[in-house]
């Protein structure tokens, strides 16, 4: 039991961070506003969680402009993908162990 818990990533303890990672794992990229719409959270909330994930180098950020509007795209990094997969595996192991 304890052994499998050690595989849980601290960065994913927060639900919103895990949700952001889930979206980015399923898509080649996602922009700020679409993420906000999808997760139905505030700008500030999303920005702070994105910052945390960026600090872990789990996501990468590409800033550009569409016309005059700034467009910020987020994508999962290799490191992020590995961490996300590990986390899913840990969850699955937990279920298996208790069966």
């Amino acid at each position, binding site marked *: 039991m304890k052994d499998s818990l050690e595989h849980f990533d601290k960065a994913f303890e927060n639900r919103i961070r895990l949700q952001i990672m889930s979206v980015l794992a399923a898509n080649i990229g996602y922009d700020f506003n679409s993420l906000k719409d999808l997760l139905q959270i505030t700008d500030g909330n999303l920005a702070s969680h994105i910052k945390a994930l960026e600090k872990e180098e789990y996501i990468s950020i590409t800033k550009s402009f569409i016309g005059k509007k700034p467009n910020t795209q987020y994508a999962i990094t290799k490191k992020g993908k590995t961490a996300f997969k590990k986390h*899913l595996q840990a969850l699955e192991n937990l279920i298996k162990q*208790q069966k």
Partner: protein
Amino acid sequence: MNEKDAFAELSSIRDLMERSSKFISLSGLSGILAGMYALAGAGWAYLLLKHHSWFNLGSAYEKEPDILMQLFLIALAVLILSVVTSYWLTMRKAKSRQENVWNPVSKRMLTAIAIPMITGGLFMGILLLKDVYTPIASASLIFYGLALVAGSQYTYDDVKWLGIGEIILGLLALLLPGYGLIFWAIGFGILHIIYGAIMHYKYER
């Protein structure tokens, strides 16, 4: 964390991955309506061509440019009506699901669809310019089918099967020249109605 929590977390992750990468506000009803417009259009075209035998349909177009123009207008009307209807129904469904229609997935889906559709449109335009009419029915079915298959990776898997059906009909239409109208009626009419009914039955009840 216990087993139940882990299970709930996994299924919510799976749900979000699915929801963020698939556009599922497509409406089955719009498929049924598009099919009906197509059948009505095909019926109208049939009345125009009634005095020609099926085998000579190809030559009929060439002899009577007036009929060709009318057929073109019917096809255009069916296309515009179908697009407007599905746009409206999709907007309505997205609104009721509180989903933003214009999201990264729908944009990717439209881009994927646009490439075969525009290529097909130009292809058929060139055929018309060159006075080659026989393969037009076939080309419209094939390019439309390719567009559906390309777009289907961003939505329900059923769309892919509709696309494959259209492609097969398009190839058959090429194999049996002169029966274009029948293949059109089956491809754009009957297949759409079947698809729409399945979608409605599976996802909207």
